[in-house]
């Protein structure tokens, strides 16, 4: 399962149109299997749209986009991808455990899977450290706790690819560290491929690879260290700013 050389997500000329606006403009990139790939860029640069395209919920996707060798949105991919939207998508009027039990029943229906479901639910609750709140209504939890419930749902069924849209936004530093530790365990021990977006550049240091995005285009695709060396920068943030300036200068000179 742990295939570091494999490509989990492959995009060639990926284009997405929303309304009359082209949100993604002919992107080429790949996401390596069993690695954590950070998708970084300012708000509104198309990160969420890219993730929705990978998950298969985005309409009007052009170009090639393959996940685990299958075209994005293929039916057989659905149980193999875990997806966490930016806003927590759970039922506020159910408890944490009831939420997980329902989504587990969608993934693994039937009486014969009952024990497996129970195990998945227990493990997911422990993964996100919510055992003490398992029987609280999701609507009564704090924002950070609710987003962890949403993450726990995505962990059910041990998906091969995890797509996480800003999972650490609004969390305190301790929880953010714990979640990044969890992501590393998921990649290291369960062999999961993780595509995680953030607009906080200091989280980039914890990724194996980075996709830097700006205005619907990929600025750079590299490991954080290589990126810093290549741009002669101290931090990923600096590297990003330098790449933005270069891109702008290039655009100016073309005019």
């Amino acid at each position: 399962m742990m295939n570091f050389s494999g490509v989990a997500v492959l995009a060639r000329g990926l284009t997405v149109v929303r309304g009359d606006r082209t949100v993604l403009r002919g992107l080429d990139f790949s996401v390596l299997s069993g690695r954590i790939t950070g998708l970084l860029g300012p708000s509104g640069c198309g990160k969420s749209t890219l993730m929705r395209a990978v998950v298969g919920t985005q309409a009007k996707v052009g170009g090639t986009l393959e996940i685990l060798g299958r075209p994005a949105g293929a039916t057989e991919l659905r149980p193999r991808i875990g997806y966490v939207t930016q806003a927590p998508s759970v039922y506020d009027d159910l408890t944490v455990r009831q939420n997980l039990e329902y989504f587990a029943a969608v993934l693994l229906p039937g009486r014969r899977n009952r024990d497996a479901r129970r195990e998945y639910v227990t493990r997911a609750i422990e993964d996100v450290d919510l055992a003490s709140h398992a029987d609280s209504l999701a609507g009564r939890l704090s924002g950070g706790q609710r987003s962890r419930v949403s993450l726990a749902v995505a962990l059910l069924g041990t998906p091969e690819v995890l797509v996480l849209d800003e999972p650490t936004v609004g969390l305190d530093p301790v929880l953010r560290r714990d979640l990044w530790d969890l992501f590393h365990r998921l990649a290291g021990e369960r062999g999961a491929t993780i595509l995680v977006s953030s607009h906080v550049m200091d989280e980039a240091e914890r990724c194996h690879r980075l996709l830097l995005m700006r205005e619907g285009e990929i600025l750079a695709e590299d490991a954080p260290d290589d990126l810093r060396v290549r741009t002669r920068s101290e931090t990923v943030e600096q590297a990003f700013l330098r790449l933005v300036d270069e891109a702008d200068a290039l655009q100016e000179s073309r005019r």
Partner: protein
Amino acid sequence: MSSQPTPATLPRPAFAPSVSRTLATAARVLRQLRHDPRSIALMLLVPCVMLFLLRFVFDGSPGTFDSIGASLLGIFPLITMFLVTSIATLRERTSGTLERLLAMPLGKADLIAGYALAFGLVAVIQSLLATGLALWGLGLDIVGSPWLLLLVALLDALLGTALGLFISAFAASEFQAVQFMPAVIFPQLLLCGLFAPRDTMQPVLEAISDVLPMSYAVDAMSEVLRHPDVTGDFVRDVLVVAVCALVVLALGAATLRRRTA
């Protein structure tokens, strides 16, 4: 946060259609409802209170209570289920849970059937209470079988669920969803024959009432009111309501998009 390794024995999910997904969805909808006892009380008690009121509004003319009461037994489930379903599915759309479910191995039919099943069950309880109260508590006089009343009430509930599901696609907020209630239900209420017999209406209105499903629901109820047996008209009316419900459910399913802009 724990660091258990992957239990190698746990089965991986796969996508195969299954009845248990429908049942799980119905159970989840009912669980949500159970955390909201006030809504349950309102759904079950309001029709009973209305019938009770109506009985004494028409204290002097029991015949009027019979005909209006029987019609209302068919209309209550339709209105309640319309409201409940439109709000519930709207919440499902706006909370992101719908997008999540459709990105998971869940068929649209599983979701819709789950909702129909859960709210159908609530409708059965509501109808049992309302019909029981009307027939044995308030002296509503019907010639036909109470089971037929219940059958029509159940189909009306299904129609209400279908309409609510469909309409929720056009409402951007719960506020709008509630405004759709008068827009969709009131015209049918006016034209269904409750206030005046349909054949005495202005011909254009009568023609419109001929294509509105609630008219057939009310007609079916009055067939049970007047005839001891299952009449041909009753069968036709029931079929029209059932087919309408299925068509609108299919339209509702079409509004659930896996891929959205």
